[in-house]
């Protein structure tokens, strides 16, 4: 009796797909947040493919979020479409948050942005709509040095409370510097990819497939790894 709860199905376990993933209470809250903070339009691009366990869910979540405010547009593309090529997407599901212009496909989620990462998605939508993000002057100065493409991949699990911080840092950097791409990767959905980098603790950050670190660090430490990776390119 006591331990009944331990046998619960993990939250990301596949179940029958149905509409209405986001609860009514959560929707009300999000509507209010969006009406307070959204300024310019935001596109949510979802790339889907075949044999993709979570694609329907990714689509449904993005669609439901987009319905909460007029400034949010939803688009679905195939992972083998021309749009996927334009945005450099080759895995499904991928969710991109963009203005459709200068942010391109640089703020992205490979795998489902569920659990704790749902909050990252919402914060990204707000920042993209505001067309800015907050960092300290010191960090901004270092970000401004980055003049070559730097790709930050953040391996996460949806049940990791520390992971959104690492994801959001990369995405804020991407908003502030057009050479930076921040790519969340859901490690459980993409085990081979996670294995390639021996991911055993999350958040596990890989920059330019070269510099790696583990943990959710403050901006000042995070930017050092980014600058290191950038310097190695020279």
């Amino acid at each position, binding site marked *: 009796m006591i331990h009944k*709860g331990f046998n619960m199905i*993990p939250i990301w376990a596949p179940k029958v797909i149905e509409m209405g993933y986001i609860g009514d209470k*959560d929707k009300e809250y999000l509507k209010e947040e969006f009406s307070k903070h959204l300024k310019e339009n935001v596109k949510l691009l979802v790339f889907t493919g075949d044999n993709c366990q979570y694609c329907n869910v990714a689509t449904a979540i993005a669609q439901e979020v987009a319905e909460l405010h007029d400034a949010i547009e939803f688009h679905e593309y195939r992972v083998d479409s021309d749009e996927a090529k334009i945005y450099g997407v080759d895995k499904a599901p991928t969710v991109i948050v963009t203005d459709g212009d200068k942010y391109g496909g640089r703020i992205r989620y490979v795998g489902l942005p569920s659990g704790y990462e749902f909050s990252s998605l919402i914060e990204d939508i707000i920042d993209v709509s505001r067309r800015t993000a907050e960092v300290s002057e010191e960090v901004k100065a270092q970000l401004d040095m980055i003049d070559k493409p730097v790709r930050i991949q953040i391996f996460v699990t949806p*049940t*990791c*409370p520390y992971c959104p911080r690492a994801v959001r840092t990369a995405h804020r950097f991407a908003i502030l510097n057009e050479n930076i791409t921040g790519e969340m990767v859901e*490690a459980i959905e993409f085990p081979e990819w996670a294995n390639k980098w021996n991911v*055993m603790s999350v958040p596990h950050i890989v920059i330019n497939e070269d510099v790696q670190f583990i943990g959710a660090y403050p901006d000042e430490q995070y930017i050092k790894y980014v600058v290191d990776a950038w310097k190695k390119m020279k």
Partner: protein
Amino acid sequence: MDLGFVLPSASRESKDVDVAIIGAGPAGLSAGIYAVRAGLKAIIIDKGNAGGLAEEAPFVENYLGFEGIKGEDLAKRFKEHAMKYVEISERNEVKEIIRDNGIFVIKAEKGEYRAKAIIFATGTTHKKLNVPGENEFYGKGVSYCVTCDGYFFRGKKVAVIGGGNSGAIAAIYLKDIGVDPVVLEFMPKYMCEKAYVDIIKEKGIEYITNAMVTEIAGKDKVEKVIYKDRNTGETKEISVDGVFIYIGLIPISDLAKKLGVETDNRGYIKVSSKMRTNVPMVYAAGDVTGIAGQIIIAAGQGAMAALTAYEDLTFS
């Protein structure tokens, strides 16, 4: 379908408040509700997500009103309740607190906040074991968070070091997601609640007592854990792919110490029964006070701290 959505509560502006609450775990969130209901202007600032360590608890079975609830769900309820009253600024690390003419100036990543009173609800973080291999294999098999990393070890054997409540819950959680855990406890007996002892036995989880872990070893990643049997003095080893360390917690009290707040020799903030510290207008609540490490007690202490702050701000 429950995808465990967690909502953000981004606050951006710098502002003046009556009371600033550092830390958005159960103590801080409860303090926030009580402070605002009492009529104070308040903000809660947290370097990570609201919820605190409660988020990491795979399962909570001793919070009044909930026979059993996942830690992250309970934390979500706390947060949503608190958000109705008080602004919570997440992913906003406080860097420094200084005093300026009796006002506390809180310098954080996202802004600067001025407050007449401060409640430290900064909680605790995981204690390290301090044995060879622990740092070297961090992220290569050594972990401090089963909900974060447990899934990488499905079908594999891992050691859970520490057999107190947290370690016991971690082991049970691991077993349930398809990992094969063995618990290594330093003391000669079960150190967790009887409720957990029963589950551990029922699920056939090995629980080794009198085990002093001396090394985590391997080549590129964790391969074994080495311990001394304190009974026989023998050195033994177990082949494992992972090691989860749950040997206790250490308080996060550096910011408070810099303000002159007194702590005990382990760093826990000393408080009166009304949650006052030795520094006027500075209060502490929750795990950082070292009183119990229980969610329900942290919430109670948070409420008390806010009420005392209200009393002090209003009547002094």
